[in-house]
């Protein structure tokens, strides 16, 4: 333990307050699940736990998670490198292409892929009949296409923030380019990669929209079936606890991989400009790659939605759209801001005051994300009715639920930015007499802007697409864009679903564009 240069500030309410809220967000559903789980009779319990099916679910879940992570890395890493470190033109557009798939709800992506193939698919109209995607492969492609942006954005943020002087130093020491990449750049990408990877993994673990349409049985699909179809809260609770256990194990693994890393510049002076690699004859290949990713990730779902729109016999009910947009925005935007605000103290404690409790708190935020949303929603029903009945079915509860559930998405980008913000600046501000909070806002906060922007975008996009929490916790008569898409698509009324999906994607794109404009 190094000797601190300044007395460490006391833990103040603005630091532990958010931490307590986050703990609540995780403990409430966990408590709920435990209560429900132990309602089972002993024999019933044995029958539920010792099913061969659970092993199959575990294998499927792990296999899909690993596959999606590998595939998402293969898309995100080259793309992030292209836009930050090469002379590729149109980096802004490429960045947008790498982010926009986040705006596409997973089940729309799955419908789009399904609609492409088969004897009546879009491709069949130009004479190509592909077998319809299903099972592992189908789920892998659909999930990769809408989760790789989490990795891409995290990697891009850290690549932009890297100080090239380290690489230059390595080059001057005689390292070749390949060695510089492997020994200097890649290690520095680690925290951001892990943060993004964790989000991808949690998405795969929690997804049921894609896996159900692709008919691939994972834990979350099984949990969804128990709650949504089988009226069984006990078996669902056990499956949810198994899923949480699995997530907990992955979180421990991530923490191990991240331990004891420091990435801030310690010297004085400003970061130097990055030297961009000239692509030369690889340019065509690079553009081809970008075009392919853009076509698959955003072109295909948008084309599918436009195709649905064209199928409608009558004009869509554009009037209802405005109301749905308003409901979506007034729940998602405050939730995104709240989550980002909560993420700052949590990431700060984790990075600047690393201790067992602060690290635990950060991991706990991820557990909230891993709790199946239906269980999360039911727990909040019970909790809010018991503790604060006036909150039940209010916008405030919905916003709080979104923020707590999606907090993990907000923590990662802030954490990555904090790793790169030199602690000396803040220490200097404190030494100059600023109180700790003022010192933070004067010295560190401005350096977090890029990360915070990404945090807000992540949570906003997720909240916009969210369904189970919205269904169970929203105020009466509340109807979001996502509910419009799901309600109509589920009844095969694709032309009714289309305008909602289109507005959903447009809104998301607009916000993402705004947030990325100045980063």
């Amino acid at each position, binding site marked *: 333990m190094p000797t601190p240069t300044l007395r460490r500030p006391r833990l103040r309410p603005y630091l532990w307050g958010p931490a307590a809220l986050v703990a609540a967000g995780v403990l409430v559903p966990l408590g709920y699940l435990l209560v429900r789980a132990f309602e089972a009779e002993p024999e019933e319990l044995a029958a539920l736990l010792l099913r061969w099916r659970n092993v199959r679910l575990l294998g499927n879940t792990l296999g899909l998670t690993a596959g999606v992570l590998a595939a998402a890395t293969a898309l995100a890493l080259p793309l992030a490198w292209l836009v930050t470190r090469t002379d590729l033109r149109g980096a802004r557009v490429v960045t947008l292409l790498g982010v926009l798939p986040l705006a596409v709800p997973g089940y729309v992506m799955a419908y789009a892929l399904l609609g492409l193939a088969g*004897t009546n698919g879009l491709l069949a109209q130009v004479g190509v009949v592909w077998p319809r995607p299903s099972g592992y492969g189908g789920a892998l492609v659909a999930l990769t296409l809408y989760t790789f942006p989490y990795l891409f954005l995290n990697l891009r943020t850290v690549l932009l923030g890297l100080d090239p002087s380290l690489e230059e130093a390595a080059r001057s020491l005689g390292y070749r380019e390949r060695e510089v990449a492997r020994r200097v750049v890649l290690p520095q990408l680690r925290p951001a990669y892990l943060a993004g990877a964790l989000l991808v993994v949690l998405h795969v673990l929690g997804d049921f929209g894609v896996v159900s349409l692709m008919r691939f049985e994972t834990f979350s699909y099984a949990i969804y079936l128990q709650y949504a179809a089988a009226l069984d809260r006990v078996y669902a609770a056990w499956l949810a606890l198994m899923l949480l256990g699995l997530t907990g194990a992955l979180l421990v693994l991530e923490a191990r991989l991240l331990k004891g890393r420091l990435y801030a510049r310690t010297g004085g002076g400003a970061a130097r400009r990055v030297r961009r690699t000239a692509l030369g004859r690889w340019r065509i290949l690079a553009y081809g790659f970008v075009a392919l990713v853009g076509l698959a990730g955003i072109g295909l779902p948008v084309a599918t939605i436009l195709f649905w729109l064209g199928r*409608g*016999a009558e004009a869509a009910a554009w009037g209802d759209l405005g109301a749905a947009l308003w409901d979506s925005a007034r729940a998602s935007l405050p939730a995104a801001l709240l989550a980002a605000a909560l993420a700052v103290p949590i990431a700060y404690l984790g990075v600047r005051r690393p201790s067992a*409790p602060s690290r635990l708190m950060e991991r706990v935020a991820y557990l909230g994300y891993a709790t199946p949303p239906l269980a999360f929603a039911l*727990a909040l029903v019970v909790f809010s009715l018991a503790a604060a009945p006036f909150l039940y079915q209010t916008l405030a509860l919905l916003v709080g639920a979104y923020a707590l559930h999606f907090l993990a998405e907000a923590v990662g980008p802030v954490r990555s930015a904090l790793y790169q913000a030199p602690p000396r600046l803040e220490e200097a501000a404190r030494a100059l007499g600023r109180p700790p909070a003022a010192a933070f806002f004067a010295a560190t906060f401005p350096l977090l802007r890029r990360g915070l922007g990404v945090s807000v975008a992540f949570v906003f996009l997720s909240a916009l697409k969210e369904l189970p929490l919205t*269904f169970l916790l*929203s105020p009466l008569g509340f109807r979001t864009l996502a509910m419009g898409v799901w309600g109509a698509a*589920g009844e*095969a*009324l694709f032309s009714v679903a289309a305008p909602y999906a289109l507005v959903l994607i447009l809104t998301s794109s607009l916000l993402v564009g705004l947030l990325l404009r100045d980063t």
Partner: protein
Amino acid sequence: MRRLPSLLAVLILSPLLAACADEAETDVPGVEVADAEGPLVIYSGRKDVLVAPLVERFREATGLAAEVRYGTDAELIAALQEEGQASPADLLWANTAGALGAAGDAGLFATLPDSLLGQPAAFVPSSGRWLPVTTRFRVLAYHPQRVDPTALPATVMELPQQAGLRGRIGWTPAYSSFQDFVTAMRLLHGDEATAAWIGAMKTLDPKAYESNTPMLEALAAGEIDVALTNHYYVLRMLDGEAGAEEARPEAPMAIYPFAEGDVGNLALVTGVGLLETATHPDAARRFLDFLLTEGAQAFAAEEVNEYPVIPGMALPDRLLPMDRAVTLSPTLDFGRLSDLEATLDLLRRQGLL
């Protein structure tokens, strides 16, 4: 500081535990009171495209305020159970007799007056706890270019003998209407025959879909050639619906009805129950009355291809005449379809859930 986490845990968990424990004692005898302030609250397991237009008409016709919470049947029943006495809901509108029966068995519903229960021509549960509103029918949908309908069996019980259909059958084991169908099969043919049927079906490698919409898209795309589904999904694809969806009469699918009285043609009754905890019982009864008016029943037939339940309604050509449709379905007490638990056990033992 060290004690903070455990203190927090206690603070947070105690009301939760108390609430879970309270649940058992929520059976306070209902007292007739005048409707409370605020709108009539409907929990609907049916999708908004099927419900919202009717609620809007009800608002216009009566001037009463009404709000709807959407979800799936099971989600909403779980929410109602967790809400207990504090539930703001007055009515539960659900897709299947199984879900309605389960909600009734869980003590969620008040008994309905005979003035309401006397109106539908059929399907009224003997428990009197919920009101049938519309009905749909189970059917076998098939791909007309790839399947010869004359070779299909007269009863769904013999479907597993169609070895030629291996890998070409679609079903939806997790979907509530399929589960109603299995419950009815258990009631009509016994548990053993039903388990044997599922086991035999499994040897044909059926493809399990999450719901009917993706299954029929798969049928149209040639992924499967027959599908155990509900009649209106097929009609919706062929004829369009509610003026919103373009008809796709070229879609390669047709309906194969099994013989009269076969469980493969089971009527799937949608209905509404009045919740024990309703705070607007009068407005709720007016809503139930409204659902059985000719206008509301005609909406079901003309806009969403479902069959009305009150007698004497004229039906569009694409639907079968009502008396013919009713004779296709086996007759049973639709209240008995509430025995969902044994069906789920069976599906679980067979590894389908």
